[in-house]
C-alpha cells in the first residue's frame, strides 16, 4: 500500500508527535509545580534563617567593675546571702560612669546605663557568687549589651539619620563606637537563648522554658493518645463486630480528625478547667487537649497499619492454637508497630506546632520560670513565637525567627524519625 500502514501514515505520525508533545508538556507542568513549591519553601527558610540566625548571637562588652568590699560584703562574712543581696546594678553603673566621665546630668547618665542590658547586674552577681575571692578587686566582666545597642552593632541603626528618629542618640553611638574601637565589644554565641526562660528584655529572652513546656505537654499527649489510640484501633480492627454501631463510631473518628483544633481548646476549657478544676496554663491540661486532638490521627494510622498485616499470619497463628489476644499481641501488633509509630510521630509533630487550642486554657502567658513538672505553669514553642511576634521591641523580630528555627528543627527531626522508622522496619507483603 502506498499511503503506509495504520501506524506509519502521515496522520498517524502527526498524532504521535502530538501525543509526545502532550507528554512533555505534562512533565513540564509537574516539574514547574515542584519547582514552585520548592522555591517557596526555600524562600521561606532563607528569610527565616536570615532573620533568625542573628538571634543566636549577641554583642557583649567587657567592663572593669570595682568590686568594693565595703559595698558588697561590709563585714567580710563571705556569706552567699549577703553577697547575693548587694547592689550589683549600682556597681555596674559606677563602672560605666568611670569609663565615660563625660556623661553628666541625670538624663545623660540614664542614656549611658541604657547601653547595658538589665541582665548585667545578675550576670555580675552570679560570677561573684561563683568565685568569692574576686570581692575587693577590680574585676573584668563581660556583660550583654542592651537590645538597642546590639541592633546597632548588627547594622540595624542608621547613624546618619536624624537623631530623633533612632532609638540611640548621638552620644550613645559615640560611646558604643569608642567601646568598639577599644576592642571591648564582641559578638558571641548567645547561650542564654537556649538555656534561659522568657524575658521582656530581648537580649535576655530564651527559648528553654517554652521548650521544656513543649516537652512536658508532648509527654502527656503521648502517654494518653498512644495507648488509647492503639487500643481503640486494635479493638475496632480485630475484635469489634461489624454493625451499625461500629460504622457510626468509624464515621465519627474520621469526622473528629477534621475538627478544627480550637474546638478541642473550648472543650478543654469547659471540661478540664471548669468542671474538673485542673490548674490553668499547665502542660497536663495542654497535653490532655492535644491528646484528644491527635487521637483520631493515631487511631486512623494504627488501623491502616493493622489492616496491612496479611490475614495469613493471623490464620497461621490461630491454626497453631493461639488465642485471639495472643494473635494480636504476639503477631499483629509487632508487625504493625512501625506503621503505628510513624502515625503517632506525625500526630505528635502536629501537636507540637499547635497554638489555637492552648489559647483557651491559659497557656498563652508570660512565664519566666522553667516549668518543673506537668502541673507548673508553662507555655509551648509556637505560643512563645506568637508572644514574641506581638512584642513592640524590634529585637524580638530576630528572636521570633530564631524560635521558629528551633521549632522547625524539632519538627524536621520528628518527621525524619518517622521516615527512618518506615523505611527500616516496615515490611511489605
Amino acid at each position, binding site marked *: 500500500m502506498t499511503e503506509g500502514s495504520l501506524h506509519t501514515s502521515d496522520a498517524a505520525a502527526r498524532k504521535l508527535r502530538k501525543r509526545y508533545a502532550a507528554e512533555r508538556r505534562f512533565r513540564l507542568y509537574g516539574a514547574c509545580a515542584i519547582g514552585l513549591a520548592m522555591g517557596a519553601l526555600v524562600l521561606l527558610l532563607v528569610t527565616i534563617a536570615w532573620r533568625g540566625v542573628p538571634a543566636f548571637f549577641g554583642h557583649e562588652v567587657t567592663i572593669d567593675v570595682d568590686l568594693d568590699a565595703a559595698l558588697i560584703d561590709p563585714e567580710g562574712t563571705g556569706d552567699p546571702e549577703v553577697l547575693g543581696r548587694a547592689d550589683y546594678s549600682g556597681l555596674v553603673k559606677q563602672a560605666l560612669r568611670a569609663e565615660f566621665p563625660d556623661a553628666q546630668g*541625670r538624663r545623660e547618665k*540614664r542614656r549611658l546605663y*541604657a547601653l547595658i542590658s*538589665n541582665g548585667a547586674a*545578675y550576670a555580675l552577681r552570679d560570677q561573684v557568687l561563683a568565685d568569692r575571692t574576686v570581692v575587693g578587686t577590680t574585676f573584668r566582666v563581660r556583660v550583654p549589651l542592651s537590645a538597642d545597642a546590639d541592633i546597632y552593632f548588627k547594622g540595624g*541603626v*542608621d547613624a546618619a*539619620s536624624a537623631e*530623633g*528618629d*533612632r*532609638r540611640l542618640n548621638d552620644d550613645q553611638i559615640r560611646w558604643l563606637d569608642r567601646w568598639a574601637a577599644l576592642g571591648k565589644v564582641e559578638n558571641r554565641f548567645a547561650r542564654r537563648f537556649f538555656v534561659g526562660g522568657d*524575658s*521582656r*528584655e530581648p537580649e535576655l529572652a530564651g527559648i528553654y522554658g517554652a521548650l521544656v513546656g513543649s516537652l512536658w505537654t508532648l509527654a502527656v499527649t503521648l*502517654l*494518653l493518645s498512644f*495507648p*488509647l489510640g492503639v487500643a481503640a484501633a486494635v479493638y475496632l480492627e480485630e475484635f469489634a463486630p461489624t454493625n451499625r454501631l461500629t460504622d457510626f463510631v468509624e464515621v465519627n473518628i474520621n469526622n473528629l480528625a477534621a475538627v478544627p483544633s480550637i474546638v478541642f481548646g473550648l472543650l478543654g476549657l469547659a471540661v478540664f478547667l471548669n468542671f*474538673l*478544676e*485542673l*490548674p*490553668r*496554663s499547665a502542660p*497536663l491540661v495542654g497535653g490532655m487537649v492535644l491528646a484528644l486532638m491527635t487521637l483520631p490521627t493515631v487511631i486512623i494510622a494504627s488501623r491502616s497499619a493493622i489492616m496491612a498485616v496479611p490475614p495469613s499470619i493471623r490464620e497461621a497463628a490461630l491454626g497453631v492454637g493461639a488465642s485471639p489476644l495472643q494473635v494480636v*499481641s*504476639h503477631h499483629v*501488633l*509487632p508487625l504493625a508497630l512501625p506503621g503505628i509509630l510513624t502515625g503517632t510521630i506525625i500526630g505528635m509533630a502536629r501537636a507540637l506546632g499547635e497554638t489555637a487550642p492552648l489559647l483557651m486554657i*491559659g497557656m*498563652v*502567658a*508570660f*512565664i*519566666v*520560670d522553667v516549668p518543673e513538672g506537668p*502541673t507548673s*505553669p508553662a507555655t509551648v514553642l509556637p505560643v512563645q513565637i506568637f*508572644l514574641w*511576634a*506581638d*512584642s*513592640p*521591641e*524590634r529585637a524580638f*523580630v530576630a528572636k521570633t525567627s530564631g524560635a521558629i528555627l528551633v521549632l522547625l528543627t524539632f519538627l524536621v527531626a520528628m518527621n525524619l524519625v518517622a521516615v527512618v522508622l518506615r523505611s527500616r522496619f516496615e515490611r511489605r507483603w
Partner: protein
Amino acid sequence: MTLRIPRWTLVAACALGLAAPAMARDQIRIVGSSTVFPFSTAVAEQFGKTTSFKTPVVESTGSGGGLKLFCAGVGTQHPDITNSSRRIKSSEVEGCAGNGVTDIVEVKVGFDGIVLANSKKSERLSLTKEQIFRALAKQVPVEGKLVDNPYQKWSDIDPSLPAVKIEVLGPPPTSGTRDAFVELAMEGGAEELPMLAALKSSDKAAFKAAAQGIREDGAYVEAGENDNLIVQKLEANPDALGIFGFSFLDQNADKLQGSLVGGVEPTFENIAAGQYGVSRSLFFYVKKAHVGVVRGIQEYVAEFTSEAAAGDEGYLADKGLIPLPADERKIVREAAKGLVLLSLN
C-alpha cells in the same frame, strides 16, 4: 518480638482519669489586657528577679476576657489580678459581686496613646477628630441626612488634605485598642458634627450606632491584633495609615510618623500632659480576698506603682508606658498600699 500487656496498665489508665485537683498556689496569676501585658510582664520579671517570690504568670486574654476570669470567683483557681485598658464597668462589678468577688482594688498605672501613623516616605498628616470620623465612619451626615460614606480620598473630606485614597489599617472589633479608638476618636469626632451632636441629646442609642460604625467598603482594613504586622504593612504601603498603640510608634520612630490629631503630635510629652486627644488610662484590678492567701500580691502592687517602675524615668516608661502626673502617682501609690477598695460613682 512479642508484646505483653501487663495487668497494671488498666489501673494506670484509670488513675490518669482522676488527675490531681486544683492545689494551693505560691505564684501570683495575672490575666487581662494585651495592651497592659508588655508593662505587666516587665514588672513581673523585675519582681521575680529582685524578690524571693516566684515570677508571676501573666496571661494575655484581653480586657473583657480578663475581667470575666477575674470575676469568676474567689479561690486559688481564679486569677488574683486582671489588667485592663479601660475602667471596669458597673455591670462587671455586679457580675463580680454575684460570684462573691466584692472587694476589688483599682490601680491606675498610666496612659496609652493611640496613634494614626504612616510611613516616613509620605507626608505627615494633620487631622482633626471630625476628619477622622468622616474618613472612617460607616455613615456620615451629608446635607442633614446620614448617608453611606461617600469619601474615597482624603482630599474629598478637606481640600487641604492630600489627594490620596483613604486606606487605614486598624485592629479588629475584638481588640481593646479598637474600642478605645472608636470611643475617643470616632465618638469625639461625631460630637463635633452639629447633626450628630443633636442626635446625641435626643436619642443616645442612635448616636452610639452612628458614631461607632466603621465603614466596611474597604477603606478600613482590619489588619489583625498584631501591631507589628500593621507596622510592616505601613512600610510597604506609604499611602496607608495605621492605628496602633504608642509604644509601637516609639519603637519604630525611624520608619513611621504619627499624624497630628487636633494639631497635637503624638509624643511622650504631649500624651503625658493630656494634650493629645486619643489617649486612654490603663488599670489593673486586685482581688483583695487573695491578699495574704497568695504570697507577694502586695509586694507586686508596690513594685508596679513604685517610682522605679511607673515613674517619669522608670523602666515602664522605657517600654512605652506614659506615666501619670507626679501628684496623681503619689495618690495612686498610697491608695494601692492601703488596698483602698474600688467605688464606682
